């Protein structure tokens, strides 16, 4: 069998069960591809010994007939997940040298299902960023280029390493996390599929916290079927996360029928932004037509507080981050600054955090500190939480009118150049304009690649579903995927 790394999870699963390939062969093919792809900056901690050991165990399990779907499937793991005995730094210098003594619930579940970990993947520091440029490891690079132009493009962020690795076929799939768009935006920039489930579907235990009321883990895969398979393995109630939902996890893959006849798809008029490129507009109306041709009923809807989602997010997320990141104090783990004669504990905190946090993280921690400080708490933080209530109500209202899913663009542009001077942080924040509402409302959202722009770069559409109805959402995404027939791959230059 050639090109093992290009296999999808579903194909590899079937080949493994038939005995056409072993997990060790698959794993070694991925490890070889990873070693040739350092130019992509995707894998930042390689774990070949762990991988081969897990692959051998998986092969034994498959032989004995006990093979869950993910048994023997080689995955990449975002650096935000704590993995026992393996560096887990959230791409931050403040966690230099940190090797957790425990395993996150999501990775535990994946490994219990027999999945193989190839290594840890690059990301924006503490998942704060939309271009993977805030990482302490350096940039992750998009395997896609503008035709023959060798300008390095961003794979998006924060799950940039995950997106780059999956798009470049270094692994069969990867874990991501999404606080404001960090799975869906990079998936769209790299021509892959990424789903953020309903808040509470995946346990957050052992995932380095950024904004606890918004963070959710999810899979980044080569197609919708793989997203369904991997999501099922990641979900489930966990007593160690009080916000994880005690709900049965359906067999998502079994729900992929491609039949969406009679489903109502909402098209929100507020997502038509001023200055939106024509290509995005065209992509969106094409998607609308594809779903209509598949038998869905298209309905124009209004989500009238959309415009306020980003400003609300940039109060709530930094506020929660300032609280969550208070734990990085140089006492229990990670970096501690060298102290001068006479320095006390306050100097230790201040120097450690100045040295350990990058500039975007420092900025957000300080913005969060400001909006929570005495005298501003009501004006900023409480007001943002009220606006969040209104944003969620917008969605509840359209779902009550019978809308099953909402179709929007995933990003306002295709992948942009790395290394551009970002003088205004707000400009970077606009990347999440279509995705951030979904986190604020706790809803499931999926990005599906549906076309290429004039420069040959992938573009994606986003579908937003009702809470806890990931199965239905995945099925609508599956219908869109089939209609779009996106098969383009980046040509290998790395």
């Amino acid at each position, binding site marked *: 069998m050639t090109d093992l790394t290009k296999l999808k999870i579903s194909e590899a699963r079937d080949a493994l069960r038939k005995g056409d390939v072993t997990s060790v062969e698959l794993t070694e093919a991925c490890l070889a591809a990873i070693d040739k792809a350092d130019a992509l900056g995707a894998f930042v901690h390689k774990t070949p010994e762990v991988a081969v050991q897990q692959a051998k165990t998986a092969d034994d399990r498959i032989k004995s007939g006990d093979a869950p779907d993910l048994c023997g499937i080689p995955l990449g793991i975002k650096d935000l997940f704590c993995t026992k005995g393996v560096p887990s730094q959230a791409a931050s210098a403040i966690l230099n040298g940190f090797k957790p003594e425990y395993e996150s619930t999501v990775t535990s579940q994946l490994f219990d299902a027999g999945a193989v970990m190839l290594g840890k993947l690059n990301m924006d520091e503490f998942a704060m960023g939309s271009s993977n440029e805030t990482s302490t490891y350096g940039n992750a690079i998009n395997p896609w280029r503008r035709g023959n132009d060798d300008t390095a493009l961003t794979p998006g962020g924060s799950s940039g390493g995950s997106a780059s690795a999956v798009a470049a076929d270094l692994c069969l799939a990867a874990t991501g996390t999404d606080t404001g768009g960090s799975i869906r935006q990079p998936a769209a920039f790299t021509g892959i599929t990424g789903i953020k489930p309903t808040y509470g579907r995946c346990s957050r235990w052992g995932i380095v916290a950024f904004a606890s009321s918004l963070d959710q883990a999810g899979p980044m895969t080569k197609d919708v079927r793989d997203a369904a398979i991997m999501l099922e393995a990641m979900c489930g109630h966990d007593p160690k996360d009080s916000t994880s939902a005690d709900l049965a996890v359906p067999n998502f893959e079994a729900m992929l029928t491609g039949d969406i006849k009679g489903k109502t798809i909402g098209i929100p008029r507020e997502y038509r932004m001023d200055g939106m490129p024509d290509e995005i507009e065209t992509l969106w109306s094409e998607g609308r037509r594809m779903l209509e041709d598949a038998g869905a009923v298209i309905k124009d809807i209004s989500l009238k507080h959309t415009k306020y989602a980003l400003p609300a997010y940039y109060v709530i997320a930094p506020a929660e981050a*300032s609280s969550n990141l208070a734990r990085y104090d140089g006492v229990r783990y990670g970096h501690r600054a060298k102290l001068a004669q006479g320095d006390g504990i306050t100097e230790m905190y201040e120097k450690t955090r100045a040295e350990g946090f990058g500039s975007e993280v420092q900025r957000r921690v300080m913005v969060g500190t400001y909006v929570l400080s005495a005298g501003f708490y009501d004006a900023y933080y409480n007001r943002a939480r009220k606006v969040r209530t209104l944003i969620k109500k917008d969605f509840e209202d359209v779902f009550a009118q019978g809308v099953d899913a909402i179709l929007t663009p995933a990003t306002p542009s295709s992948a942009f150049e790395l290394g551009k001077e970002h003088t205004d*942080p707000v400009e970077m924040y606009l990347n999440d304009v279509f995705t951030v509402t979904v986190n604020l409302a706790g809803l499931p959202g999926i990005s599906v690649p549906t076309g290429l722009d004039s420069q040959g770069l992938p573009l994606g559409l986003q579908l937003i579903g009702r809470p806890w109805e990931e199965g239905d959402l995945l099925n609508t995404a599956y219908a869109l995927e089939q209609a779009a027939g996106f098969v383009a791959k980046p040509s290998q230059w790395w």
Partner: protein
Amino acid sequence: MSIDIETAARVAKLARIRVEDDALPALAQEFSNILGFIEQLNEVDVEDVEPMVSVEPMRLKRRQDGVTDGGMQDKVLSNAPDAREGFFAVPKVVE
């Protein structure tokens, strides 16, 4: 809203992040830009709107108030920058 250098310095202090004096004007400018962006929220009528507490209404689960884990001092201390005699070590905090 414009943030002055003094406010920027106060916020840095509250956040326990050392910012050198010469970096404060740029920081204050960045804060001003971000807060200017956030100020759009003032356009929204939030009269009688409850601030969101939990995005998916769920009853928090209760559990037995019992010991389920522990007895792993060495593991707890294994990542500490400075640990001595079974404790985290820090600069002197009490004179």
